[in-house]
């Protein structure tokens, strides 16, 4: 949508002044106030966001290069030590590995599960809305509650393992207590790629958020007309190839949206880890957000805490920039 002309006080895009000539003067006098009014009303929000988002980001950036490394606030410039130390910090590097692995697995599982459920529900099963409600209700629950419950369900001595044991499974999984990293390639100080303990956290997170992907895909599927599918069927396409050739490509914008929303939730993930597992033995389940919290509020290492949060911001930007670019491109393509 185009930005309306600045002298127009008309509502919406299509509107224009349709007042009678006699009342034009009155309208014009009112205009100068009316023109300023939108900005005036927005001003508190603009100022609040300017200070609390943009100002604070700059402030945190400054803290990250300051000498504020004890309880006493010292905002003198201290160089980039906080960052260079992070590059050699086992806990931070483990956390970076974990959060990237976690994001890939969690977003991947949620997308696959969400898409599967959406396609199944789109085929109009008996009991329709009931299924949807069952898959969506975890979204209304806090990550804290999720963490508390899954901590018990995936406790090696309780929950799921009790059932597996009854089924006669010999070696029970250690879930989030496991310290293994598979396949265990050594890279500097840390082992790559996947800490097994993270799988438990991915299960809990996907339990909570898959419904979101499903809801987005369902909305997308409902936007694809039955005519289009019918036309493909008339052309002799099989159900499977209709999905592969027609429907999946049309769901691309939905996938991008899901990756943006879930990806950014995942990169800053804090509460679920904090409640369910903590940093874990050998930091197998630690993430930068938890390290940031403990650096800042437990260890008074404010410069380090700030530096970690700057890295987190960069991570989010790195994820969002290509995703938003891709979305704008698909939007342009669909307009043509």
């Amino acid at each position, binding site marked *: 949508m185009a930005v309306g002309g600045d002298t127009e006080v008309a509502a919406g895009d299509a509107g224009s002044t349709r007042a009678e000539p006699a009342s034009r003067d009155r309208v014009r006098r009112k205009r100068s106030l009316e023109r300023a009014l*939108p900005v005036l009303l927005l001003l508190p*929000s603009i100022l609040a*966001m300017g200070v609390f*988002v943009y100002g604070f*980001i700059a402030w945190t950036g400054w803290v990250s290069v300051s000498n504020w490394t004890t309880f006493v606030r010292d905002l003198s410039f201290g160089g980039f030590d906080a960052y260079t130390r992070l590059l050699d910090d086992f806990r931070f590097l483990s956390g970076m590995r974990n959060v990237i692995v976690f994001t890939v697995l969690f977003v991947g599982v949620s997308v696959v599960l969400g898409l599967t459920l959406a396609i199944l529900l789109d085929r109009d099963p008996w009991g329709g809305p009931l299924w949807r409600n069952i898959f*969506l209700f975890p979204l209304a629950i806090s990550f804290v*509650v999720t963490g508390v419950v899954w901590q018990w369900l995936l406790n090696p001595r309780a929950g799921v393992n009790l059932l597996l044991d009854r089924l006669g499974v010999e070696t029970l999984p250690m879930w989030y207590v496991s310290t293994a990293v598979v396949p265990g390639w050594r890279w500097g100080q840390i082992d790559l790629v996947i800490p097994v303990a993270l799988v438990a956290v991915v299960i809990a997170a996907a339990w909570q958020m898959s419904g979101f992907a499903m809801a987005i895909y369902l909305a997308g599927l409902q936007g694809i007309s039955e005519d289009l599918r019918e036309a493909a069927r008339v052309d002799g396409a099989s159900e499977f190839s209709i999905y592969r050739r027609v429907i999946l490509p049309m769901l691309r914008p939905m996938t991008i949206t899901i990756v943006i929303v879930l990806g950014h939730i995942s990169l800053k993930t804090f*509460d679920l880890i904090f409640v369910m597992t903590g940093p874990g033995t050998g930091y197998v389940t630690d993430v930068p957000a938890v390290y940031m*919290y403990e650096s800042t509020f437990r260890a008074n290492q404010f410069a380090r805490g700030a530096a970690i949060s700057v890295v987190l911001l960069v991570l989010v930007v790195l994820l969002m920039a290509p995703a938003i670019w891709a979305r704008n491109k698909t939007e342009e393509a669909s307009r043509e």
Partner: protein
Amino acid sequence: MSKVLARTPLYLVLIAVAIFSLVPLYIMLVTSFKSPVEATISRMWELPSTLSLDAWRGAWSILRPYLINSFALAIPATLLSSLIGSINGYIFARWRFRGSEIVFNALLLGMFIPYQIVLIPLVVTLQSMGLYNTIYGLVLTHVIYGIPITTLIFRNFYARIPNDVIEAGQIDGAGLLGIYRRIALPLSLPGFVVVGIWQFTQIWNEFLWAVTLTSAGQRPVMVALQNISGSQIVEFDLQMAAAMQAALPTLIIYVLLGRYFVRGLLAGAVKG
């Protein structure tokens, strides 16, 4: 008959995922109604032989002040941020000015930052305002960082009001505020329900602000729940009852007004 058979795999998958989805709720409910004797780890999958309210009572006696804190936080913060979002969204949808899209997008970006990046300045600022470790400080925080999402949902909402409805008000000579009060606001109830449910759920469930900006008696319920679960002394059944009680307000809203909750979910995700 063959059609039913062909759909068997479909139902098998749906049932499997439904079980996955419901298992945590089952464990929470079943355990919280067990007597302390039955609420052992080894018997956690079994149904209680008698219904006991011991765990619910025990959890309630611990959580009650924190549940009250959470209501004292979530209700005013939801109302305030809905109101602000409504006015902002109305202006961005209906009273565009030069640069309004840029301002809108700049506000919207505030939604996507990892909040850790503002945490240290926020603590310092709230301390200097005397609002650190108060419910008011948390309300203020949630209202401010709620601006992007509430503005976005309301903007999309008001953009869908047909132009002639607004123009009719304009011909009457009503200005921005007049049209807002006489035309936009009366049509806004569904928008307020969607935004209100969304914000209440988010604020109630939030943890990072809660754990960093408050301590001791001022804490919202999610921090209290985390403390209960982290403690070795609190029994399993009590933890589940506490989790249930902390989850109940948003669950009830979901059961009663799920339709609007989903609308908020979609509205928040899809930028108009």
